[in-house]
């Protein structure tokens, strides 16, 4: 059996030796640690992405600082990171940054709570019930195509320029992606697993809690990621309208007086909020989706 060879039969007069007819490319696999540890290798290992995903942002900040110090970047356009940090500390000590941040977080929190509640309740109803799908899906698909920022003027007309508009805008940003992702996640749970669960005699409650909910969890977390990102976006948009507190107010005011430092402080805080939100979902995924055999990038 194993004697069957794919090597072409050699004609005696052929001057080419058999070995060179065969492809010479071969691979040898050894344990990962058995490669000789050179000094460069050890060094590389030690400095191999020491900060994980934060390595690239940190490098950019360092480069930015150097360019600012050298004078390539004019301070009025882009103050150096240390200047921005200094401004942030100063604003904090003034007592103007703390309350602004608190009020922004409060708006984001309330908006998220409303948006996620509505998104999850409608998503679950739409996912589980045919009637729920008919009731919510059309509206959600329409809302999904409307840009968040385009709703803002309408909301101002309807709900005024007070807190309500800001909170509702954030809720809108968070609710729609949650509904869409949760609905799709529930509908995409493997039909064969549901069928199997029915044959074991499991109750409907069991099937929901042990098959549908865990099966929909990956999609739910995708929805949560989008919701958190859009809520920060909604926060920024909402706070540029008639705010007299909050981060957006800080940024708009700084813009008026050409205080680029303060504008950057606001932007940095927004980006940190986004980063924290992403890390939060990442941790949830690591804990809740341990069962998933997922691709480990090299």
């Amino acid at each position, binding site marked *: 059996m194993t004697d069957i060879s794919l090597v072409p039969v050699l004609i005696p007069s052929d001057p080419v030796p058999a070995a060179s007819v065969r492809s010479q490319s071969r691979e040898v696999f050894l344990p990962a640690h058995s490669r000789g540890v050179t000094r460069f290798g050890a060094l590389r290992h030690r400095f191999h992405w020491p900060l994980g995903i934060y390595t690239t942002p940190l490098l950019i900040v360092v480069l930015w600082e150097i360019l600012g110090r050298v004078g390539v970047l004019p301070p009025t356009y882009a103050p150096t990171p240390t200047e921005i940090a200094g401004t942030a500390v100063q604003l904090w000590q003034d007592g103007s940054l703390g309350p602004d941040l608190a009020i922004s977080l409060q708006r984001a929190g309330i908006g998220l709570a409303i948006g996620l509640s509505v998104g999850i309740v409608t998503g679950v109803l739409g996912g589980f019930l045919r009637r729920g799908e008919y009731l919510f899906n059309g509206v959600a698909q329409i809302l999904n195509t409307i840009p968040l920022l385009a709703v803002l003027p309408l909301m101002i007309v309807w709900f005024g320029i007070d807190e309500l508009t800001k909170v509702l805008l954030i809720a809108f940003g968070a609710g729609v992606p949650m509904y869409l992702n949760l609905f799709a996640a529930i509908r995409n749970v493997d039909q064969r*697993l549901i069928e*199997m669960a*029915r*044959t*074991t005699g499991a109750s409907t409650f069991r099937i929901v809690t*042990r098959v549908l909910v*865990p*099966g929909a969890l990956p999609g739910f977390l995708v929805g949560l990621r989008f919701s958190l990102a859009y809520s920060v976006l909604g926060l920024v948009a909402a706070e540029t309208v008639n705010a007299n507190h909050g981060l957006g107010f800080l940024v708009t005011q700084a813009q008026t007086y050409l205080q680029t430092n303060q504008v950057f402080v606001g932007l940095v805080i927004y980006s940190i909020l986004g980063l924290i939100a992403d890390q939060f979902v990442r941790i949830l995924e690591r804990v809740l*989706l341990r*069962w998933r055999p997922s691709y480990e990038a090299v």
Partner: protein
Amino acid sequence: MTSPAATPRLQTGVLAEQVVRRFGDRTVLDHLDLRIEDEELVVLLGPSGCGKSTLLRLLAGLDRPDEGRIEVPAKRAVVFQGDRLLPWQRVLRNVTLGLRGPDADQRARKALADVHLAGREKAWPKQLSGGEAQRVALARALVAEPELVLLDEPFAALDAITRLRMHDLVRELRRNHHAAMLLVTHDVDEAIALADRIVVMSNGRIGDTHRVDLSTADRAVSVAREQLRAALLVDLGLAGQH
């Protein structure tokens, strides 16, 4: 429930009478009759696409017949071709899926021990080999002490050695679990290894029936085995090709 057709006629086993199942204008099951006695293991043999799985789904209650009448025990379980384990639950919780009551974990542990998987309760399905996963699926089916077990080509995806081990396991399990079994397969050797009775399906009906009264050793090597095998190949229209 009060109509006479819905009243059960038997106390045990399976009864299928004049069952018709159509998909569009294709009649897959054409007035099929089948009877399985209590504690009997019937192997349903046939080429792929002959309607074996369709019949099994009807007996499982996953589909309804277009005509005819099917009567099965309410306590029944299915072992599918794939293991169909819930990837997000550990092995033990996969087995307790259909169980109720405070002793569910205990019974699941015993069922896992029966399929020689004691100590693997906490494993995730992704950590199991194909044979192990299919054994968990067997444990999940048997844990509720069903009166009918339907097996839909349960070992088709396993390698030859693992499949032989699974055959031994099925024989062993039959000593402790008293259930009628219907095993669907296209593997003649598997049919001979396990069956009390082999029924061959053709043209949407049960064709020939062979009662198998051989010892385990005779099922492996004997003249009777070879005669049975030859007869089955004739029934399947494969005579002369093997």
